[in-house]
C-alpha cells in the first residue's frame, strides 16, 4: 500500500469508514446481520492473521476460540452479567487456553502444528456438544441479551451493528499498534527466521506462546460479540469448518498483510450472499472463485496488489538509477 501518497490513503480510509457508518442506515434486518457478521469474523481473522500471518504459526483452532468466547459470553450474560465483563472473561479465557495450545508449537511446526490444532478444534466442539450442564448441549443457549451502550438499547439490528463496528475499530487500532511495536517485529522475526531471531536475543519461546495467546484472545472477542449478535448459540457453528473458513479468510485476503482479514472476511461472508441469486450453485461458485484466486495469486488478494506495487517501485528505482548514472557521466 505504500505506493499511494499519504493524504490519498487517509482520504480513502475516511471514505471507507464513513461508508461503513452511513450506508447501512437503510439496510434491512438481514443485510445488517450479514454486515455485523463480517465485522465479527474480521476480528477473529485478525487474530489468526497475527498468529499465522505475522508469527508464522499455523493454527486450525481459531473457530474453537470463537466458540469459547461465544459460550463464555452467552453463559455470563444470561446469568445477568454485563457484556463488557463477559468480553473481558472471554479474552482472559481464550488467552489462557491459547497460551496452553501454544506449547505444542514449541515442539512441532508447520503441518504437524496444523494437525494438533485441528485435533484441539474438534475436541472443543465435542465439549460444547456434550457438557450440556454448562453449554446446553445440542439445544444450545437461547435468549442471549444484547447490551445497553451509554444507556441506549441495542436490541434493534442497527445499534448492534454499530457495537460490532465499534469493536472492530478498537481491535483494528490495537492490532495496528501491536504489529508496529517491538512485539510485532519480534513476531515477524519468528516467522522469517526463528534461529536468527533467537540468536539476536529474542525469547522465541515466549513470543511463540504470545502469538498464540493474543491471536486466540481476539478469537474470543469475536465469539463474545457473536453470541449477542445471533442471540442463540449451539455447537454447530463452532465446528472444524469455522476454523477452516477463518484460515481461508486469512490466506485469501493475504496472510501477513494488515488489511488481509478485512478483505478475506468480506469474501467469505459477503461473496456467498452476493451469489445467492444463483440459488443452489452459490457455494460451488464460491469454492471455484477461491480456487481460481489462489491459483492466480497464492499470497491472496493483497499479494496481487503487493506484487504490482513492488514492480512499480523497482521500475521507479531503476529509472532513478538511470537518471543518477547519466548525471554522474555528465559530471565527469
Amino acid at each position, binding site marked *: 500500500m505504500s505506493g499511494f501518497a499519504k493524504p490519498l490513503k487517509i482520504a480513502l480510509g475516511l471514505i471507507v469508514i464513513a461508508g461503513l457508518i452511513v450506508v447501512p442506515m437503510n439496510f434491512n434486518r438481514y443485510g445488517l446481520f450479514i454486515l455485523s457478521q463480517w465485522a465479527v469474523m474480521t476480528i477473529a481473522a485478525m487474530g489468526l492473521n497475527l498468529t499465522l500471518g505475522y508469527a508464522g504459526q499455523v493454527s486450525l483452532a481459531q473457530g474453537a476460540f470463537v466458540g469459547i468466547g461465544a459460550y463464555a459470553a452467552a453463559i455470563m450474560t444470561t446469568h445477568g452479567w454485563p457484556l463488557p465483563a463477559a468480553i473481558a472473561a472471554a479474552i482472559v479465557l481464550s488467552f489462557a487456553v491459547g497460551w496452553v495450545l501454544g506449547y505444542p508449537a514449541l515442539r512441532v511446526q*508447520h503441518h504437524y502444528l496444523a*494437525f494438533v490444532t485441528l485435533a484441539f478444534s474438534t475436541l472443543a466442539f465435542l465439549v460444547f456438544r456434550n457438557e450440556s450442564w454448562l453449554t446446553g448441549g445440542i439445544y444450545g443457549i437461547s435468549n442471549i441479551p444484547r447490551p445497553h451502550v451509554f444507556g441506549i438499547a441495542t436490541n434493534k439490528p442497527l445499534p448492534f451493528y454499530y457495537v460490532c463496528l465499534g469493536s472492530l475499530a478498537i481491535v483494528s487500532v490495537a492490532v495496528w499498534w501491536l504489529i508496529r511495536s517491538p512485539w510485532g517485529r519480534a513476531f515477524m522475526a519468528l516467522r522469517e527466521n526463528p534461529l536468527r531471531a533467537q540468536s539476536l536475543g529474542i525469547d522465541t519461546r515466549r513470543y511463540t506462546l504470545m502469538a498464540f495467546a493474543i491471536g486466540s484472545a481476539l478469537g474470543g472477542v469475536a465469539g463474545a460479540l457473536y453470541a449477542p449478535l445471533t442471540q442463540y448459540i449451539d455447537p454447530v457453528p463452532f465446528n472444524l469448518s469455522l476454523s477452516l473458513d477463518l484460515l481461508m479468510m486469512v490466506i485469501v485476503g493475504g496472510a501477513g498483510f494488515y488489511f488481509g482479514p478485512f478483505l478475506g472476511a468480506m469474501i467469505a461472508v459477503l461473496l456467498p450472499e452476493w451469489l445467492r441469486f444463483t440459488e443452489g450453485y452459490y457455494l*460451488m461458485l464460491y469454492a471455484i472463485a477461491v480456487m481460481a484466486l489462489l*491459483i492466480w495469486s497464492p499470497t491472496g488478494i493483497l499479494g496481487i496488489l503487493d506484487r504490482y506495487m513492488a514492480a512499480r517501485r523497482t521500475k521507479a528505482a531503476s529509472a532513478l538509477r538511470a537518471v543518477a548514472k547519466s548525471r554522474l557521466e555528465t559530471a565527469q
Partner: protein
Amino acid sequence: MSNLFDLLVAGLATGAIYALVAVGFTLLWQTSQTINFAQGEFVMLPAFLMLAAMHVGAPFWLAIILGILLSMILLGLAFKMLLVDPMMRHGVLPLAIATMALAIGIKEAVKQFFSAEASPFPSIVPTGDISVLGHAVSLQSIGVLVVAILAVFGLTTLLNRTSLGHQMQAAAQNPTVARIIGVPVERMILLTFLINAFLVALASLLITPIYLAKFSSGEVLGQAAFIAAIVGGFNQVRGAIAGGLLIGVLDNLAASYVSTQYRAAVPLIFLIVVILFRPQGLLGRAEERTV
C-alpha cells in the same frame, strides 16, 4: 469375549478402508507436498459416479469400471493439472487451502447435481454371516478386509519390487537427484495421483454400502484417514497402513467402552499424544530439517 472379537473384526474392516485412504494421502504428500483436505470428498465422489453410471443403464460391474476410470481422470489427472501443478511452487499452505475450497466445491456439486439425501449403494460382497472360530462374522467385513489387503499388497509390491516403484520412491525422496539419473519425475508424480484416485475409488466402493452414499459423508472419513496417516507416519506407506488399522480398531473399541459422546475424542487425543512425543509417527522416520 465374543463382543471384543466382533469389535476387533469390525474395527479392522473399517481400519482397512481408512488405510487405503491414508496411503493415498501420504503418497500425495511424499511426491508433491500436497496436504489434500478434500481426500474425504475424494472417497465420497466415486460412489456417486458409479450411481450415475447405473442410472443411465450400465450394469453394476460396468458402473464400477467407469466410476474408477472417471475418478482417475477427475481426481487424479484433472486435480493434478488444474490445481496442484500451478500451486506446487508456492508452498504447502495455499495449496492446502485450495483443497479445502475443492472439498466445499465437490460437496456442493454432489448435493446440487445428485441428491442431498442419502442413497443406498449395492455391495460387491453378498450380505450374510459366516462362522469363524465359532463367531458369526459378516461377509461384508471379510470382503472389505480381503479387497483392502489385496490392494495394499499390490501397492507395496509395486513400490518395493518393481523398477517403476523404485523410480517413484526416488522421485519422492530426492527429485533433483532422481532427475539427474534419468527418472521421469513429472510422470512419477502423475502416477502417484492416479494411484491415489484409484485407491479412493476402491475405498468408496467398499465403504459406501455400509454408510450409504451421502454428499457429507466425506467429512468424517477424511478426518479419520488424516489421523491415520499422521499417527502411522506421514512419510511411510506402511505407517499409513498401520495407522489406518489402529484408528479403525480404536474407533470401534472407543464406541463401546468409552461414552458414545466422547468416542470421537479418543483418536484425537491419541493423535495429539503421538504428534507431541513422536511427531514422525509410530513407524515413520524423522524428516530432515531444511534449516
